[in-house]
């Protein structure tokens, strides 16, 4: 079964690849990665008092979500959204587990409500005033590809544009030995029904049952900069988008399920 959708907007953020323009130029080899790491993006959608104390998940997710909508020329409040993260907020999970082990009665109520997997999606909907449905999902090593399928499925079923946001942050404390992830990485797409009138790049997504998945490896100079982040499996997809030529690649949807992607 094949899903066909248009790509209206793309965004990307990592500390050495701050923004899609930079990331794309590094992926195509047009420029070397910046020497210095950028500081984390400020979630300007939130009230000034909330920006500084916003968790990293919220900061990076809101940044790429806003940039993708801008690139697409779409009003954020019109778009249903799919938020995907392998591990969610690893820093808050570390806080919750260590506080529970020592002083459980002192759990912070704000940290607790920010610990839900849909916290970034919730802040996005509050910040943009969007009543359109969002979802928040996880699929371990296959999170990016499963989220892409869900976003494209919504586009095809409902015939309306959908915002897709994927992110993972740095693990903290003892949990880092089990759920390893370094740095911040976020990426977003606005996907839409394919239209004759508007010329956009498009995606053809086809699932394939295989004996063992062999996803396309990342090849560019961007790869080592994000290789330690749990969302790193998304990189080959963005390398394909960075190229101006049609490309094909394969992402893993499971141990024995591949997502064949044709970028036109």
């Amino acid at each position, binding site marked *: *079964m094949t*899903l066909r959708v248009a790509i209206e907007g793309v965004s990307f953020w990592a500390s050495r690849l701050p923004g899609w323009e930079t990331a794309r130029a590094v992926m195509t080899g047009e420029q070397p990665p910046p020497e210095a790491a950028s500081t984390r993006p400020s979630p300007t959608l939130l009230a000034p008092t909330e920006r500084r104390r916003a968790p990293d998940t919220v900061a990076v997710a809101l940044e790429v979500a806003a940039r993708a909508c801008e690139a697409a020329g779409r009003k954020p*409040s019109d778009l249903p959204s799919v938020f995907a993260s*392998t591990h*969610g907020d690893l820093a808050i*999970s570390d806080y*919750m*587990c*260590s506080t*529970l*082990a020592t002083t*459980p*009665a002192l*759990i*912070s*109520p704000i940290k*607790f*409500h920010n*610990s*839900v*997997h*849909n*916290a970034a*999606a*919730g*802040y996005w*909907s*509050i910040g943009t*005033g*969007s*009543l*359109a*449905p*969002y*979802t*928040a*999902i*996880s*699929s*371990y090593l*296959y*999170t990016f590809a*499963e989220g892409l*399928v*869900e976003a494209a*499925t919504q586009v*095809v*079923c409902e015939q309306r544009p959908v915002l897709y946001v994927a992110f993972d942050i740095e693990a903290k404390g*003892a*949990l880092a*030995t*089990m*759920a390893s992830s370094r740095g911040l990485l976020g990426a977003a797409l606005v996907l839409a029904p394919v239209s004759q009138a508007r010329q956009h790049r498009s995606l053809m997504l086809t*699932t394939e*049952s295989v004996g063992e998945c062999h996803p396309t490896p990342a090849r560019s100079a961007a790869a080592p900069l994000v290789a330690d982040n749990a969302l790193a499996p998304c990189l080959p997809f963005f390398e394909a988008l960075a190229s101006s030529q049609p490309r094909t690649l394969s992402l893993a*949807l*499971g*141990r*024995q*399920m591949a997502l064949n992607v044709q970028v036109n």
Partner: protein
Amino acid sequence: MQTRPLRITAYTLCSAAGDGRAATLAALRERRTGLTRNDFGASPISTWIGRVAGLETQPLPAEFANWDCRNNRLAWRGLTTDRFIDAARAARDRYGAHRVAVVMGTSTSSIGASEEAYARLDPDGRYPADLRRPIIHTPHSLGDFVQYALGLTGLSVTVATACSSSAKVFAQAERLIRTGLADAAVVGGVDSLCGSVLFGFNSLELVSPEPCRPFDVERRGINLGEAAGFALLEKQAPRGEWLLGYGESNDAHHMSTPHPEGVGARLALSDALARAGLQPADIDYINLHGTASQKNDEVEAKLVADLFPATTCASSTKGWTGHTLGAAGIVEAAISLIALEHQLLPGTLNLRVPDLACGPQIQRDNVQREASHALSFSFGFGGSNCVLVFGRDR
């Protein structure tokens, strides 16, 4: 592409109210609560909980040892109840292992295992050897376990939108089947008691020191519970209740408080009714979210009073199960299906004097009557709402 009705060819649930459909039906009929005084953990806060008995002494079978933890034990209890696992494996054999999707909902998945590891870190600050299993320290622990246990190889996702999680799984699965990415789907949800939710909800002052009293004027908050539930969705089948529609929205209001006028909830409801092609007057029963928190019940009661005729019966069954969070969607979907199957519309346990916002729809007592269509409401933190529409097998 229009939403297509799907057959629910198997379903089950395990909660404090009982293991399986028959035990749940008996508890509903006899108005027997599953809630008990909180005895979970080393220093239990003063509240009541819906605890599933025996999980501590029932490890997963050896072949699943890598996934062993309280949440996945509860998942296994659910899979092996009402012969659900046989129905799921039969679907696998009928359609192919890669054609049956797994869409699971949870709020905290197996974070309880991470909490336990932190309580038992070795002197170097490392995880104890028995808990050094990465898959149980990540949200997809649940979806990954269910897929492996059923021998499936297709799409597998864990949805985590707090208390709407395992309602939204029906919507996501319907889309996968509609687009042809799957022929059938195992949907469901599991959440288990853990320190994060007991102390977390306590920190928000949402936990009741007494058995919860949904929609009662003197309600004092929620009781947390744990549960597992599963349903098998298929495009075509000779029998089974129907998933007729669903509606999703969010409030865009606050992370832990519902919109005061229930703006998002109303949108989800109208979307659900439109997809099902039904009017409010067609609805015989609504299983409400009814957590017994001050705000939720007030907003929800007003919504029902505004939009439904007096002939619609509505209730909260949290007095039987507690609030099972990410599993609430599937638990209450299953209770709605039991209601249609047995024409028994459960009332609201512990409701004595209804809140002023309640209309005549909200029932204290069980009602035995003809019922064709049921709704299930699920509203979660982060303002995520989902409404499901079910139809009787006919």
